[in-house]
Structures are given as structure tokens and as C-alpha cells.
């Protein structure tokens, strides 16, 4: 009996003596459990403007030499597009849907000289483009691609975090847009992968891979670099308010009077 009493007292003492440690460990585990998800989600948010790449054309609204050789299908579509931007093109017809204020598609929207604001909420990275206020949502909540949706101007985007990089995967594009203003085409089979990384506080890099076997003989890659502009804001931009521009363009492109 006496031995049992001594044993109970020793056990109680040991339990009380160790309890602060046990309590502290529990607290630490809870604290870590709370901190981990926040630390695991990098912050891409901010107002970003793409920097010009000196290796590209002076206007730098094209992917230049990044683009792989086209398939015969791609070549035919490229010629049919007959972009008014090509200096060699005789066309003055504004066939590019961008002139009718349709979405420029991705990745072309990055090439326009307007900033993009990236906003993150749980499960989504949202790109708010200044150009005509197009919005792009990259779902990071683990959902699969939406196989029920039709073919889309801006595609269907899902993403996952790999370390500090958002890997955005976009499919279900329609084939109405071009990849740049030179008129390089893509098909509805285009698979776009973007690795988006904030390499330092003021710099964002998007390494993109265009895999479109219908239009190009092999996948090709391009790097876009963006600079943080905390002093800027997204300004109003309304593509449809273009009556004076269309009149201007009509004067400049109609056949000379004889």
C-alpha cells in the first residue's frame, strides 16, 4: 500500500513536472500548423509591367525568334492572317480580332504595353489586365480543367505551386487569336504552360512553353520579365471607344482617289 502511494506520488510529480513541456510542444505544433500554409504560398501580388526584351524587335510586341518552325497548317494560317503589322504585308484590312475589341488571348495579352495587377485569394491567382479590363483566373484549389466549357478566348487555367513558382496550365483555347501581332497562329490544341516566379521583390518572370503540335513542329519557349510598379494604378481602358480611331484608320487605308 505504502509502495503504491509512493508510486502514485512519483507518477503525479513526473506528470506535473513534464506538463509545461508537453503543453509547449502542443502549442508549437499548433503554431507551426498555422504558419505553414501561409509560408508555402508565395506572394505574386502587385502591379506589373512587362519590360522590353532588347533581343526582340524595337516595338517588342512579338515573340521574335522564340517561335518554332510552323507546320503546313500553321504556315497556311499565318499567311491567311496577313497581319497588318508585318512590314512586308500588303494588307490594310483589320482582320485581327483585337481591332474589334475581342480578347487578345494568352500569351498575347502580356505583349501589349499595359500593366497587369495580380491578386491572390485562397484557391485563385487573379490577373486583372488594364487592356480592356480583361480578367484571368488561375485556379489553384486542385480542381481539374473544365472539360465542359466551350473553346475560350483566354483559355481555361489551373495552377499549382512548385516551391516559389506558380505553374499555370491553360487549355481549351479557341483558334481565333494570334500569339503576337505578327500574326503567328495557334490552334485549339494549344497547351500553354507558364512558370510564374517572383524572382525578387520587384521582378516577376514568366517562362512560358507553347505546345501546339497542330501549328508548330515542336514546343517552343519564351521568357517574359515584368517590373513591379507600386506607384501605378490600373487606369480605365475601353477598347470600344474607338470611333475616332476607326475613322482615322479608314482615311489612312482607303484606296487613293484617282
Amino acid at each position: 500500500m505504502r509502495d503504491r502511494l509512493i508510486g502514485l506520488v512519483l507518477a503525479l510529480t513526473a506528470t506535473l513536472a513534464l506538463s509545461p513541456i508537453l503543453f509547449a510542444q502542443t502549442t508549437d505544433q499548433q503554431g507551426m500548423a498555422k504558419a505553414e500554409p501561409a509560408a508555402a504560398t508565395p506572394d505574386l501580388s502587385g502591379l506589373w509591367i512587362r519590360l522590353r526584351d532588347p533581343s526582340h524587335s524595337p516595338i517588342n510586341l512579338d515573340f521574335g525568334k522564340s517561335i518554332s518552325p510552323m507546320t503546313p497548317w500553321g504556315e497556311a494560317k499565318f499567311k491567311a492572317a496577313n497581319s497588318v503589322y508585318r512590314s512586308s504585308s500588303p494588307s490594310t484590312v483589320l482582320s485581327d480580332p483585337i481591332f474589334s475589341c475581342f480578347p487578345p488571348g494568352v500569351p498575347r495579352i502580356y505583349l501589349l504595353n499595359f500593366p497587369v495587377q495580380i491578386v491572390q485569394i485562397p484557391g485563385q491567382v487573379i490577373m486583372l489586365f488594364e487592356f480592356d479590363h480583361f480578367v484571368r483566373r488561375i485556379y489553384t484549389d486542385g480542381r481539374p480543367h473544365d472539360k465542359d466549357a466551350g473553346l475560350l478566348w483566354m483559355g481555361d487555367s489551373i495552377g499549382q505551386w512548385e516551391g516559389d513558382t506558380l505553374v499555370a496550365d491553360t487549355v481549351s483555347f479557341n483558334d481565333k487569336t494570334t500569339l503576337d501581332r505578327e500574326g503567328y497562329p495557334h490552334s485549339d490544341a494549344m497547351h500553354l504552360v507558364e512558370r510564374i516566379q517572383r524572382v525578387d521583390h520587384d521582378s516577376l518572370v514568366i517562362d512560358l512553353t507553347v505546345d501546339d503540335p497542330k501549328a508548330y513542329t515542336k514546343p517552343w519557349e519564351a521568357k517574359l520579365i515584368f517590373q513591379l510598379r507600386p506607384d501605378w494604378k490600373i487606369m480605365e481602358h475601353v477598347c470600344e471607344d474607338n470611333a475616332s480611331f476607326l475613322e482615322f484608320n479608314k482615311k489612312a487605308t482607303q484606296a487613293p482617289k484617282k
Partner: protein
Amino acid sequence: MKKSLLALFTTFAILVISSAPAFGHHGTSAYDTTKLTTVKGTVTDFQFNNPHVMISVETRDEKGKVETWISEANSPNVLTRHGWNRDIIKIGDQITIIGNRPKNGAKTLRLQKVILSNGQELDPNSLQD
């Protein structure tokens, strides 16, 4: 022919110099981007609106015949970030507009430079850098 040439040169000088292609919402193929045309005159309209800023300038040939030139600059969003504002040009201002003229001979310019009456030069393209 001689008179029309004289009229052309008395009201504006055509400078033949090479120039980088202009930024624009629309294409360059309709324009002669190898030549710059200079027009000095009075502002009759200044639209600081999206998608492109438009400036109209009135000038006169030697016979006093009024000519109106319409010129196009970049988006006001881009230009605002590079020092332009909606009051920087006013109707009645004497300015010089310099740009590429279309191959069809229309009196329109894709702007490459604007010189205000006080001599201040404005970049109408202002590519981001």
C-alpha cells in the same frame, strides 16, 4: 505640278530619314515608315481618350486653302505615365506634329514626335522601359 509641289513644301517639310516603326493599336503596313512628315499648325481637336490619343491640326497652303491633318498617338494610359495629361495640348495651340504618312497620301500621321509652342518635345509613343 510645280504649284502643288510648292504648296507641299511651303506648308510642311517632308524629312526623309529612317525611323523605327511606331507603336500602334493598328498596323504599320499602310504607312511609309521610312519617311517623316512635319506639319506645323493650329490645334483644332485634341481627344485624350482610349484607345488612342488623336490630335487634329489645321494648316494653310500658300493660297490660303485650309488643310486639316489628323494624327494619332499612343493610349492616354501609356502617355499619362510618361508626362502627358489631358490639358497638355489645347485647341488653338500652335504645335508641330511629326510622323509617318500613309502610302495612300491621306492627310493623317502616325505620330513620332510632337513639339509644343513653348518648344517642349513630347514622345507620342512612350514605349515602356
